[in-house]
């Protein structure tokens, strides 16, 4: 069972990396969250019966864990700045305007609540409202309402820059 589990996690690890990148400020936090997600996935693995897609189950557990994650009280240089390393890729491969876009993106996302971040992540991942609702455990109507609010909030946040 453990081998099958590790196989699934290895093939779908991108989901965990994205969730960690979305919710964590530092590399240390990201590693902590990554480990906690692994642990929660393992705990819920016996109840996973292929009734839903593997990706849906992994998003469900990963996002639940990220939203309820307990961050240790440590002094951090700047809590409003979003995860550096996860978004640092822009410096290596892309031009200044892209770098600016990325800064705008992560600074805006950093100001969202835990649930809003999960909806944005799934929106950015092109998930349908139906799947977003299934993953977060809310109604499709609520996803629609919430998404409209978030879009407004993001536009406002990005417009402030």
């Amino acid at each position, binding site marked *: 069972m453990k081998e099958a589990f590790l196989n699934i996690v290895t093939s779908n690890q991108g989901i965990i*990396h994205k969730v960690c990148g979305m919710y964590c400020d530092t590399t240390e936090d990201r590693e902590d969250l990554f480990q*906690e997600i*692994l*642990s929660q996935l393992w705990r819920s693995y016996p109840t996973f019966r292929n009734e839903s897609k593997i990706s849906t189950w992994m998003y469900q557990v990963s996002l639940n864990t990220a939203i*309820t994650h307990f961050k240790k009280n440590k002094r951090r240089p700047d809590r409003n700045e979003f995860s550096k390393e996860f978004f640092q890729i822009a410096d290596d491969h892309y031009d200044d305007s*892209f770098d600016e*876009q990325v800064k705008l993106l992560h600074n805006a996302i950093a100001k969202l*609540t835990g649930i809003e971040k999960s909806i944005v992540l799934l929106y950015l991942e092109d998930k349908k409202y139906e799947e977003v609702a299934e993953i977060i455990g809310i109604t499709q109507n609520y996803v629609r309402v919430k998404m409209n609010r978030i*879009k407004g909030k993001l536009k406002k946040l990005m417009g402030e820059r």
Partner: protein
Amino acid sequence: MELEELKSAWDKISSANEKKLQLNEQEIQSLFEKRTLDISEKIGRNIRIGMIIILAWICLWLSIDFIINPIFEKYVGKTNLSDKLMDWTFALEAFTYLLIIVTIVILWIRYNRIEKQNIHSTDLKSKLTSMIQILNSYKTMFYVVLIIILFFIAVTFSSGFVAGFKDQAIKSESDISHYSFLVWIFIVVAFLLTLGAFIAVFYFLFNLFFNRLYGRYLKQLKSTLNELDEVNSPHD
């Protein structure tokens, strides 16, 4: 910047990170082996540690009272405190420990019930609710134990103060029945201030400790649950 641009920025970051952060199965396994406890498991561990500490403390207290003290008294002599006071303090201390144990056991039963109900839940609302219930129970237990300890401190401090005061009066051969009303007021106020300051500092430190550790987190969980409950709000 429009939302579509935001989406394209995210796609570029994601695909670049897919290669950059990719771990092989062995690396994932090694992270998996080192996996840490989540907050609920940590609270479960804290309850067990709390129980071990209180049981160890009771063993220490009993061994001091029944083994060390009798040996000590052989060489130094008995304390000035009366047997009645000593018996009363012993009974009070035993009652305090019993109350603490009962509180911890009640929390342990409650904790296990909540854990069993939601251990495999992938539903966010159930998870949030169970975590809030666990933290609230833990908080209640923490404050109940704190109040029991403060009550014990207040009572033992008061009895110690009265016994010491009487002892001093006997030693100095002063007749306390001749003390004026003002002197008594001064003694009572001084006693209450000392006791109050001691209890306030003790309470403040423990309260600060709990709030620093879990206060902000509990608030965050409650606000997330409220946000999720907005779905039932007529304003939506």
